């Protein structure tokens, strides 16, 4: 793959881009799953009807934090993701706010029927945490690197789907998801990824946030790809391209207004996600664009293939999930925009 031979833009470059003061700088690295775990504890401290179901991987999806703090509201449910989801439905229909977290491979893929009929058709106030999202899972390989849950969950009526971009946002999103009423799914990762938002960075379910202003192209990203998009945007300044970066942390319901404003003002869109290109974030955006304002669009994501074992950084390069690929996509879409004028 072409992208693997090029060096990936490193994190330090963002902070040191000459003349530019990036709004977001690297504050460290921590996996979004820890944000989920901490957010859950904060929620549990405030509300005593928040309960958690454990699926024998609590120390890996970080529900163990809640278990330690609130053992009376933690219920081990063994290795039975489907039943844990059904039990969560029963709890929600009894006025509790149940969270069940597992790897997304099981919480979304194995569970689709439970999510569809028991959770969503019931409009039950069930909260699902889907961990180990994306290729950055690393050495566990394809079975655990889930690349399909955005597609699966966003197609379900009544479902809300949140993909936080970093640790801090994951914490906020988890808390917000608990206070929000209705079925919701949060997608988080295993590997430490850049932390760059702060406690006062705006977050709201259903609202995409513009993290960087620009009018030549808009990069709409979710999860750890938001950082890559910011890195790419700083690099692109050298080519005279001023990119807008949008953190689409809620994929369903999609913030159409922010997307359409970007289409109108930038005239070209690039989506970036650690997920199959098909039916993911890019697909959701394309649906809105085609209907309202079909500007040129390019997609960065996994291209209809399974993952594999390896070191997370190696894998992200190999699968083209870096700022380098985003830069290429931006250049391509900007050219298309120029020629379509």
């Amino acid at each position, binding site marked *: 793959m072409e992208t693997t031979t090029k060096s990936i833009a490193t994190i330090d470059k963002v902070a040191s881009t000459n003349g530019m003061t990036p709004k977001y700088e690297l504050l460290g690295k921590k996996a979004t799953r820890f944000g989920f775990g901490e957010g859950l504890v904060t929620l549990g401290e405030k*509300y*005593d009807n928040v309960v958690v179901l454990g699926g024998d991987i609590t120390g890996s999806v970080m529900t163990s934090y809640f278990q330690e703090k609130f053992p009376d509201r933690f219920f081990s449910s063994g290795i039975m993701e489907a*039943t844990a989801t*059904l*039990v969560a439905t029963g*709890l929600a229909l009894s006025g509790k*706010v149940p969270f069940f977290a597992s790897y997304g491979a099981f919480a979304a893929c194995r569970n689709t029927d*439970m999510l569809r009929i028991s959770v969503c058709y019931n409009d039950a106030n069930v909260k699902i945490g889907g961990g180990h999202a994306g290729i950055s899972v690393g050495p566990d390989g394809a079975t655990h690197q889930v690349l399909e849950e955005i597609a699966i969950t966003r197609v379900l009526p009544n479902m809300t789907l949140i993909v936080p971009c970093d640790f801090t946002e994951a914490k906020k999103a988890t808390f917000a998801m608990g206070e929000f009423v209705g079925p919701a799914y949060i997608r988080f990762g295993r590997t430490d990824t850049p932390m760059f938002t702060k406690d006062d960075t705006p977050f709201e379910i259903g609202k995409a946030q513009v993290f960087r202003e620009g009018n030549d192209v808009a990069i709409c990203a979710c999860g750890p790809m938001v950082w890559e998009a910011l890195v790419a945007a700083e690099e692109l300044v050298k080519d005279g391209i001023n990119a807008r970066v949008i953190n689409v942390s809620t994929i369903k319901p999609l913030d159409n207004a922010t997307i359409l404003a970007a289409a109108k003002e930038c005239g070209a869109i690039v989506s970036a996600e650690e997920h199959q290109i098909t039916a993911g974030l890019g697909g959701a955006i394309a649906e809105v664009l085609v209907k309202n304002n079909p500007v040129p669009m390019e997609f960065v994501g996994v291209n209809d293939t399974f993952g594999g074992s390896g070191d997370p950084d190696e894998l992200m390069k190999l699968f083209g999930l870096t700022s380098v690929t985003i830069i290429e996509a931006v250049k391509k879409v900007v050219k298309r925009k120029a020629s379509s004028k």
Partner: protein
Amino acid sequence: MSELKFHIYPLETGFHGATRPIPNPDLIAKYNYTSFTPFKNSKDNSDDYIAVAAKEIRRDIIRSLVEAKSGHSGGPLGIADVMATLYFGGVMNYDPKNPWMDGRDRFVLSAGHMAPVLYATLANAGFMEKKELLTLRKLNSRLQGHPGRDMGLPGIETSTGSLGQGMGIAAGMALADKYVSKNNHRVYCITGDGELQEGEIWESAMFAAHWKLDNFCVLVDRNHCQIDGRNPDVMEVDPVADKWKAFGFHTIHINGHSISEIRAAYEEARNTKEKPTCIVAETYMGHPITFMNDDYRWHGKPPNKEQAELALAELAE
């Protein structure tokens, strides 16, 4: 610390327009649905009284199915004695005037295709007007082909229809009652025997036993039939009672058409501590209609006009 409050009991949010279907006035008159008074729920009700209720439930199943022109006859008819005992034998605590009251016991029909018996029972208990039974499966009806919580029908605690799911939901309700709300409400669930082939049933069974959900009672409609044939010809489920015992349930094997045995089993379940209970109720699909009895081909079809008349004649007082 505070409680996160949210609206739980269903609103009518589902697939329906401004108006529900209007049942045919001639049929309402023909079936005498205007003069109906609901059956009463009481521990003191005689077995005969419950048998009368079961018979009326069966008639309503036939009436609603023949008008719907599609739907399941066999399972619903076979489980009517159990449903009548649950709702009129003082087993379940409910109030049709206040269907979502806090202290209620819950009922979950895990075998969602048996919806006609649930609707007929709810109507006879006063949860809705009986004439609404004639809207079964019609556009905008609250009586969906499989129970849909989004239709807001009182007494429908959860949507079911994907076999194997309802029991897990019921176990979750029992968990909420026993460990979080810490009340003494009970949760009742009915599964089919073909449904036992679904893996989630056994996951949920393991879960309920692990958490010692003694406020939880599952009843298996053991009619030995499913869609494609008799159970052993499709997939052997025996030994059913031994399986539940092995999974940690207090298990009771009864005749599912004997009201006294059904009552006694539910009483035994209530008095069982530290274990959930499974009642394996031997029934006949389509019971007691002579041309349906024990015939798996009646799993999923409604009677036609003539068959309905024959059936109603068999069910006459």
